[in-house]
C-alpha cells in the first residue's frame, strides 16, 4: 500500500521512519558504549600507524566500526593488506 503510493507520487526515498530507525540504532551504539565517532577516527589512525610498521596496508580501505549483536557491542576492524609479491625493503 505504502509502496504503491510512493511509486504513484514518484518518491524513491525510503520512508522517513526507516531513516529515523537506522540513525537511532547507530547513534545509540555510540551512546551506549560511550565511544564517539571521533574516538573511532583516532583508533583508526593509531591502528594504521601501528600496523603499517609491520605490514603494507591499504590505508584508505581501513574500516573500524562499532557493531551490535544481541547484547554485545564489538569493535570490528577491516584492514586490507596491499598485494605485494615480495616484502619491500625499507
Amino acid at each position: 500500500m505504502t509502496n504503491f503510493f510512493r511509486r504513484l507520487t514518484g518518491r524513491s526515498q525510503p520512508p522517513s521512519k526507516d531513516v529515523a530507525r537506522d540513525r537511532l540504532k547507530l547513534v545509540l551504539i555510540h551512546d551506549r558504549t560511550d565511544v564517539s565517532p571521533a574516538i573511532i577516527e583516532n583508533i583508526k589512525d593509531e591502528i594504521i600507524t601501528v600496523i603499517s610498521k609491520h605490514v603494507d596496508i591499504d590505508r584508505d580501505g581501513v574500516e573500524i566500526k562499532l557493531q551490535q549483536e544481541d547484547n554485545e557491542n564489538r569493535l570490528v576492524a577491516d584492514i586490507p593488506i596491499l598485494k605485494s609479491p615480495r616484502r619491500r625493503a625499507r
Partner: protein
Amino acid sequence: MSGTVITVTSGKGGVGKTTTTANIAAALAADGAKVVCIDADIGLRNLDVVLGLENRIVYDIVHVVEGAAKLKQAMIRDKRLPHLFLIPAAQTRDKSAVAPSDMIRICDELRAEFDYIMLDSPAGIERGFRNALAPSNRVVIVTNPEVSAVRDADRIIGLVESEQKGPPSLIINRIKPEMVKRGDMLSIDDVLDVLAIDLIGVVPEDEQIVIGSNRGNPVALDEKSRSGQAFRNIARRIKGEQVPFMDLDKQDGFFSRLGKLIRPGG
C-alpha cells in the same frame, strides 16, 4: 499497607510526563486505589495545574523537607476523587532544596498510607531526576515516537539500570496512527526494537489532552476519550491486569464517534 512508588521519567522534556503522571494517578484513584502524586520538578511546578488543584496550594514539598510543614499539611485532596492527593513542588526554589534521602524518607512515610505514590520527575538526568529515582520501586519511561525522545529514553534506561532500579517499562505517548501508516513516524515495533524494554502503554495523540489540561480535568476521567482509555488501560496494567493494547488504526471518524455515543469506551 505498603505502597508502590512509581517514578515517571523521560530524559527529554515535553514528552508528556506530567500529563501521564496525572492521568495514571487519576485512573488508579478512580478505580478505588489510594494514590498520592508528588511533583518532583522543583522550580517548574505543573502537576498542580494539570490536575486543576493550583488554587489550593498552601504548603509544598520543600516546606516538608525543611520542617516548616507536616507531610499531611502539604497533601492536597483532589476535588473529584477522594482517594487522590497531590504534594506540589515549590515554585520559587530549585532542585538542590531536596536531596534523594529526603525523597526516600517522605516516600517511606507515604507507603504506609497509600497504594501508589506517583513521582513526576523533571526532565534531564541531574539532581531532580536523581531525587525522583531514589525512592522508586518501579520506573515508567515516557517517550514519543521521535528520534530525540527515543535517544534520551535509551540514556535513561541505562541510568535506571545502573542504579539497580530496573527494568523500567515504556509508554509511547503522542503516536499518530496515520503518520505511522504513511511510514513517516516510528511505529511501536520500531521503538521497541531500538529500546528493547517492556511496553506498558501506547497513547495516541489527542486534542482532548490539551482541552483536559486547559480545564484541569485529566482525560482519564473522560469515558469517551481515546487517550483517556489508553491511560485507564495503563493503570490496570500497573495493577497487574492483562489488558490488550488498543487498536490504534481505528480512525476517530464520524461513524466511530457515533459508535462511541451508543457504546462508550474503547
